[in-house]
């Protein structure tokens, strides 16, 4: 399974902080995003943001980066600390 985490407004809009996804048929972060977005209109809308960022195993990543079962993949908006 892939452990998927959501932060900030992405977490708030989806109404959940994490989900577990079977990664067997998902090759990249973009595949995972599309898979989650296909669940319903709300998820499609939230995950469609062109500002959405992805981290794989706690490292900022590109959408074409490979994923596999056991990974931790996080989706979040641009960061605003400091």
């Amino acid at each position, binding site marked *: 399974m892939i452990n998927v*985490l959501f*932060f*900030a*407004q992405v977490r*708030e809009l989806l109404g959940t902080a994490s989900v577990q996804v079977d990664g067997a048929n998902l090759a990249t972060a973009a595949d995972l995003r599309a898979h989650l977005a296909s669940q319903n209109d709300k998820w499609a809308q939230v995950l469609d943001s062109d*500002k959405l960022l992805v*981290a794989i195993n*706690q*490292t*900022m990543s590109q959408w074409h980066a490979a994923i596999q079962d056991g990974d931790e993949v*996080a989706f*979040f*908006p*641009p*960061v*605003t*600390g*400091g």
Partner: protein
Amino acid sequence: MQANKILVQTEDFDVAAEYARIAEDNGDGAVVTFVGKVRDFNDGSEVTDLTLEHYPGMTENVLQQITAEARERWPLNLVTIIHRVGTMHLGEQIVFIGVTSAHRKAAFAACEFLIDFLKTKAPFWKLEASPDGRHWVDARDSDEQAAKAWDNGES
């Protein structure tokens, strides 16, 4: 003493104590510190408090990475980064960055580099509360440009 002190915490920090800790080495001619505070930063609405969320684990990793990057660019001795999370009121301290070096130019540059990179790379998010309600703070293009300028050698 450990060269890097990197903390993410809910508690406030004591600037005098953090300064004293990094200012002890007589080999350092320069100590530069930065403190970021909660300000009333937007569009006329009165901000009353700010809640900082972060990605535990990744945040600390990113802060370690940008500190390592600063050490590759400048000869630094001690680096402290303390970033608070949770809810803070107007005027409270959010972040402390302290850098020591033999010379001031390295210390100034590294301190600015660290806050520029922290703001654009470390997974923190600000939720702002005002009498009008609460909303997530948008990332600023100017912050992104400030961080990119270091990569382009403009700063």
